[in-house]
């Protein structure tokens, strides 16, 4: 190994946000040239904040940053880029109507007089892509790319701007196993060419596979730097949460009851005329967790929206507890005891400046226990807030603070409290643990299994294959709006098998898929 040269060091970083949240409490962090350095920690531990500070998006309240030994104040992302720092955000920052090359050169266009020298740009992009073996056509429009390819564009963008330090924020969250493997190869190649990579991830197996060293953050403080080879996944997990977490999900055999949701030949046509859902049929039964695996954008979102009344469907039928719901609105469906944990808790699942209590009540304020003749019962509401915060272990000063002062995991627990306290028959859980820390994930999993054990039906949509495999009793794989595979027993399959069906490489026979309708 080459000499360990420190390229970036952060000392005693403290960050207090304007809502009073102290995200970093004196973190020390340092990385060497030519390493892949993992940054792990629970959500709300302060990782994202630390990275935003490196990239100049946030200013530290106190503390120093040294780049190549030189004390630096990074006032803006522009300056960070100039200093050779590049960031690949979890949510891509690309203009989808432009080509790959246009996106890469955006803001740093090579010019010829007053015109953009497109030919030169395309050539440059091709060269970089080839150099690092990233197979991508610079003339393609970004909207036509897969998620994995879009990520490559983001990496190219950073490289094109001369980044020497690359920050990747949970890059594998949206990738299939095959795409992840490809990404890892590219990252290793970049490392070997002298680039330094900061890899933020919750996925400990990935950290083990890819990274050289790891910094673990808990509650805004660094828990130490370790050589990845010398620590086990269990060690890392323990350091992250400060206690033993059961990584394997434990559950008993399911006791299946009668059908609660029956979807027959459901068809949904999107705004662009594309069939988002194409003659989809399945049924969900009491006492089972049915997992839906699939690469995002294969109809899962539309299916969830149709099931919860947020979207109308074009053909086919959905019966919930025997009632056809094509004429039902959201409220009617909620009355059928359907709970919905939405994919995006901040845009759909919460009203950010209302209090935690108000957020947990939004769907049931008109019920008799909280109001009479339209006038709210303050005492009952206050008590409900206190009870829920306790029962769902929501960490907060009190239930009356606005919900946006909480960390992601705690907001998700509040969403869970709202949705599960209705005594639902059916729970539609869309990415229930996305961006949520290990502790909260475990809590949410236990709650869902508990629901299933109490004869509730759970429909789990998740892009985390570990979660789908671990939690589900049976699994559907969705591909291009259809069911590509159905596995009646989730215990009998592996991630890699699922991957093949998710990418559309494999497809089960009609007979096998028909099983999912359970003879109807």
């Amino acid at each position, binding site marked *: 190994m080459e000499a360990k040269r420190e390229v970036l060091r952060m000392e005693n970083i403290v960050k*207090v946000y*304007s*809502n*009073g*949240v*102290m995200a970093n*409490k004196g973190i020390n962090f340092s990385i060497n040239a030519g390493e892949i350095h993992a940054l792990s920690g629970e959500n709300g531990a302060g990782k994202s904040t630390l990275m935003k500070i490196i990239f100049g998006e946030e200013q530290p*309240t106190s503390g120093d940053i040294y780049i190549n030994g030189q004390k630096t104040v990074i006032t803006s992302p522009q300056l960070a880029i100039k200093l050779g720092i590049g960031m690949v955000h979890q949510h891509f920052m690309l203009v989808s109507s432009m080509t790959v090359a246009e996106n890469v050169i955006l803001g740093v266009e090579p010019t010829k007089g007053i015109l953009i020298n497109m030919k030169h740009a395309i050539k440059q992009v091709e060269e970089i892509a080839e150099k690092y073996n990233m197979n991508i056509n610079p003339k393609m429009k970004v909207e036509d790319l897969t998620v994995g390819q879009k990520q490559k564009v983001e990496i190219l963008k950073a490289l094109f701007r001369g980044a020497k330090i690359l920050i990747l924020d949970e890059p594998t969250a949206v990738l299939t196993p095959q795409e992840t493997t490809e990404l890892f190869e590219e990252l290793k190649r970049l490392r070997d060419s002298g680039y330094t990579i900061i890899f933020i991830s919750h996925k400990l197996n990935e950290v083990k596979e890819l990274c050289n060293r790891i910094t673990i953050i808990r*509650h*805004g*403080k660094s828990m130490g730097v370790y050589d990845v080879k010398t620590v086990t996944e269990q060690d890392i997990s323990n350091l992250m949460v*400060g206690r033993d977490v059961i990584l394997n999900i434990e559950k008993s055999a399911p006791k299946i009851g009668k059908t609660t949701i029956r979807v027959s030949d459901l068809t949904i046509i999107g705004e662009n005329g594309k069939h988002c859902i194409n003659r989809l049929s399945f049924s969900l039964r009491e006492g089972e967790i049915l997992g839906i695996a699939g690469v995002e954008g294969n109809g899962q979102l539309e299916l969830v929206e149709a099931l*919860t009344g*947020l979207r109308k469907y074009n053909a086919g039928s959905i019966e919930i507890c025997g009632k056809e719901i094509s004429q039902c*609105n*959201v*409220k009617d*469906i*909620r009355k059928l005891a359907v709970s*919905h944990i*939405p994919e995006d808790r901040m*845009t*759909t*699942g*919460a*009203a*950010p*400046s*209302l209090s935690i209590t*108000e957020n947990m*009540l*939004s*769907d049931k*304020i*008109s019920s008799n226990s*909280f*109001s009479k003749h*339209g*006038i*709210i019962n*303050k005492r009952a509401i206050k008590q409900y807030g206190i009870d829920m915060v306790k029962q769902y272990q929501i960490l907060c*000063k*009190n239930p009356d*603070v606005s919900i946006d*002062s909480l960390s992601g995991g705690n907001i998700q627990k509040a969403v869970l409290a709202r949705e599960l306290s209705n005594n639902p028959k059916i729970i539609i859980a869309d990415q229930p643990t996305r961006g949520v820390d290990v502790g909260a994930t475990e809590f949410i999993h236990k709650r869902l299994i508990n629901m299933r054990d109490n004869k509730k039906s759970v429909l789990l949509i998740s892009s985390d294959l570990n979660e789908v495999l671990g939690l589900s009793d049976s699994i559907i794989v969705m591909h291009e709006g259809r069911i590509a595979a159905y596995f009646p027993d989730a215990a009998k399959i592996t991630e890699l098998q699922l991957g093949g069906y998710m990418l559309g490489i494999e497809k089960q026979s009609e007979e096998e898929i028909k099983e999912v309708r359970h003879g109807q």
Partner: protein
Amino acid sequence: MDSNKRIRIIVDITKLIITILVSCGLVTLIVLVTSSDPVNAFSSFFLGPFTSVRRIGNIVEAASPLMFTALAVIMIFSAGQFSMISEGAFFIGTLGAMMIATSVPLPAGIHPIVAILVAGAMGAAVALIPAVLKMKWQVSEVVTSLMLNYVVQFFAIYMVSYHFREISSSSLASIEFKDTSILPVIIRGTRIHLGIVLGVILCIITYFLLYRTTFGMKLRTVGNNAKFAHYSGIKVTGIMVISQVIAGALAGMGGGAEILGMYNRFKWTTSPGYGWSGIVVALLARDNPLMVPLAALFMGYLNVGANIMARNSDVSSEVVQIIQGVMILMIAAEALLKKWKQKMIVKAAKSEAGMKGDVIND
């Protein structure tokens, strides 16, 4: 109380004080620059409103219409809408009350009540137009309400000029209101009328509606995140429309109360602009209906001061418009005092972290 809340209140109050001080400073500056007798102008502006019972009464009278329009603005803003219709709704309310007061014979006591209810209904009807246009065709309520305000203003003046005009008068004025329709004065020596009581009651009712009813909670949920409200099973468009209708009714009743309390004829040739001042009052009151009377009184004080100054000195009353503009800017300026606020938050967070330090290090 939790420290964030305390800090927010301290900062808000300080901001308000600074806003008022800057406004006053600005008046001083304008007066010093333009007046040949600044001392007289100052005392007229700042002290003038308190020199007689009648003038103190004037403050309250000036505050009265602003309470109604401010409540309307709060209703609309709380639902996350930006309709500017309170201006038009107020003016159509004056027209509605005028029509009942001049043309419908009713016994005393009942007459003003009917007139104000009609005024409210007409205000609600006007406010319904931009709301429905948005619900049906996603037309921006900002644009439609602003345009509609002109339509309403000219419609009202047309109605007065062609159907209710006092022929014998040389300037534009409606025929005289019937005696039975006039709102009684409640404090002798002033023109403080029953309308102000209605205003205060409506402040309390609006507060109750927003913070103590299921409708209010749904409304605030819609205002905060409409997508979330929809997901929760709340009928979002319905709430948006109802909030604007209620706002229109509030502003319309304000128009009715104002014209029946202060005048015996409809004499405006252009809208008095209480709808706009209502926005300032709503901002000053931090969207809290219970704070509206205070904020309205403050605006009333400024208006009365400016009028007295205009009469007694060589500075014109338009100064108040400048003050209003500055106040809107300062209240809307998020960055004002931000650094100071951040410092306090940092301190509080650090001391809390210090207290819990052992737990964190565990």
